[in-house]
């Protein structure tokens, strides 16, 4: 399939998925009421009597919509960060957590919950430490003169380990009756925390970063040929890589701010996308964004609807993701870089 065709098809799928998700929920609303409500909304007519407009309004717009948007943003961000990292580091087994961003953000969230009573402060701390952990990773790599891929990966391993252990320290200090459970659940990941304010606020930098990554996807193709090749083509390798790392870390940190830790998406979605559309990043990056969004939307709907009480989405992304991954691997004839 050619690029526009694939991207168009996926966009349509995502739009349909989003609309369908809006109509799904534990609170029963008949299809008729839904249609009436939206007709009234769109045309601006008076709603028929007996339709509780205010209730449907808060159901669709303040409960479901932020959550649907959050699923789309988080899924797409994790996938695009994963895809960019996989191209940059020329390694299909890399995920957005490579440079420690998720570990750092988790630590930031836990520390915030331990120290502050106000949720905004928790979010700021989450975001800040996501970034600090990447700076630590890049800093370690720099100490040994280089943005060379291997050193960056090592820096990431060290930084990730550092913040993971700091997180344990915070957990140890937290009050076992109120703070600790809150921290543990937050880190399991879930979109049920996504409140409208945070989602709209985070959406702007997330969408802009994704656009930038799409616009730079051609460079990713060159980077994935290796540093030597890229330099001989006159590409400023280090600078491009740093910009990419910055953008990917920004969106990854924001996913933790919105929904805590959600694993696996950033690893498997770019992979699956690559099997479907091939390795050309100009197609791969936008497709990853769309497939990631569709996937998380689907999984979040399962989380919302299947059980009496919600399961943390992080658990489901891995349980659904792994078999799916294996299945796609078996079916795929298009390998890495063919």
């Amino acid at each position: 399939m050619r690029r526009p065709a694939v991207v168009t098809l996926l966009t349509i799928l995502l739009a349909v998925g989003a609309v369908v998700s809006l109509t799904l929920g534990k609170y029963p609303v008949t299809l008729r009421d839904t249609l009436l409500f939206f007709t009234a909304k769109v045309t601006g007519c008076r709603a028929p009597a007996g339709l509780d407009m205010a209730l449907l309004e808060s159901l669709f717009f303040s409960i479901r919509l932020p959550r649907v948007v959050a699923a789309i943003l988080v899924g797409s961000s994790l996938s695009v960060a994963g895809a960019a990292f996989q191209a940059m580091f020329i390694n299909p087994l890399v995920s957005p957590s490579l440079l420690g961003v998720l570990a750092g953000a988790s630590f930031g969230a836990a520390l915030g919950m331990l120290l502050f009573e106000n949720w905004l402060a928790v979010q700021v701390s989450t975001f800040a430490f996501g970034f600090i952990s990447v700076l630590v990773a890049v800093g370690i790599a720099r100490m040994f003169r280089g943005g060379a891929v291997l050193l960056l990966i090592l820096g990431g391993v060290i930084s990730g380990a550092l913040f993971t252990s700091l997180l344990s320290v915070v957990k140890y200090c937290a009050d076992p009756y109120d703070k600790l459970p809150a921290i543990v659940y937050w880190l399991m990941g879930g979109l049920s925390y996504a409140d409208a304010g945070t989602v709209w606020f985070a959406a702007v930098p997330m969408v802009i970063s994704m656009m930038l990554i799409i616009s730079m996807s051609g460079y990713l193709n060159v980077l994935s040929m290796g540093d030597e090749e890229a330099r001989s083509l006159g590409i400023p390798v280090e600078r491009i890589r740093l910009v990419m790392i910055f953008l990917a870390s920004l969106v990854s940190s924001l996913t933790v701010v919105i929904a805590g830790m959600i694993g696996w998406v950033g690893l498997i979605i770019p992979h699956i996308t690559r099997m479907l559309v091939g390795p050309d990043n100009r197609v791969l990056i936008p497709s990853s964004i769309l497939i990631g969004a569709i996937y998380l939307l689907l999984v979040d709907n399962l989380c919302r609807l299947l059980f009496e009480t919600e399961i943390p989405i992080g658990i489901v992304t891995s349980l659904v993701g792994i078999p799916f991954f294996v299945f796609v691997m078996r079916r795929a004839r298009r390998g890495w870089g063919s």
Partner: protein
Amino acid sequence: MTKAMLWMACLSLLLMVMPVEARQIVDMTGRKVEVPDRIRKVYATSPPATQMIYAVDPGLLSGWNAPLKDREKRYLSPLVHDLPVLGGYFGQGRVANIETIIKAGPDVVIMWVRRDSALNRRMEADMKKAGFPLVFMAIDGMADYGKGFRFLGKLLDREERAEKLADYGERALKEAAAVARSASTRKTVSVYYAQGLDGLFTECHTSRRTEVIGLAGAGNVCLCRTRNDYGMERVSMEEVLLADPDVIFVQERQAYDRIRRDRAWRRIGAVRDGRVFVIPKTPFNWFDRPASHMRYIGIKWVMSCLYPDLYPIDMARETRLFYRLFLGVELDDAQVREILAG
């Protein structure tokens, strides 16, 4: 090396323990345990048991399970402000270190057990190695706390005091039963228990954590089977809307603020009628986390929120009385207000 030290410690402890007169008691699970004749110091492995020992006699505590906060100290006897933090065995974090316990040197270790488990066996073995008699307390529901206090009274030679506490509790439960009976003639008040920062964690109606709601004759809106003791069931805003509870009890101040502000929450009857209550939790929680004998006053508070007309109690006076009896502190008006405000 540490093993050798541990054995040395055990030996010296054993030598210390040897000459003490011992007696045999039967603990709450029916085990026979040898304990010293006079028990001077006690360590309990989890907060609800620690709280009960504090209520019986603060002087007997050999340490806390988790560090005290400054706001908690203001409501506790000075005797216990500087006790060491020994940790405990309750879920996560702060697992007790056996050597720290040996250092604190309690005469008995009390463990709160819910059912027979591998962990109990291991604890027993660990404590035996360290030379401490391990006593099990088994308390299932609110009705068992009286039994628990009397058991402690006998074990710790504080029978009169324990009787007073058990008596208060039993009277509170009788009172609750009477109020629940008179409330049964009208529509059951539905209650939602909001936990977590956004108020969307709750407990199932089968959970022991929401026992107070049932005892007060109200109904928990979250109908499900508990998965485990830990609880914290996640629900969605839609389910809360659907349940439309008459009263909400909130664990966290942040969640309370959010519930009062948020457009979706404002559609719920309890929020519209201003019947959202923050649970008092200083120095120990009145409702849950940990679920303890503090629920004796907790159930009175719950009933005063549920039935202001049926149960016109002077909550400030009752709080003063309870804190005097159970916690050994005299409260001034400002403190009472602060506690009741959650």
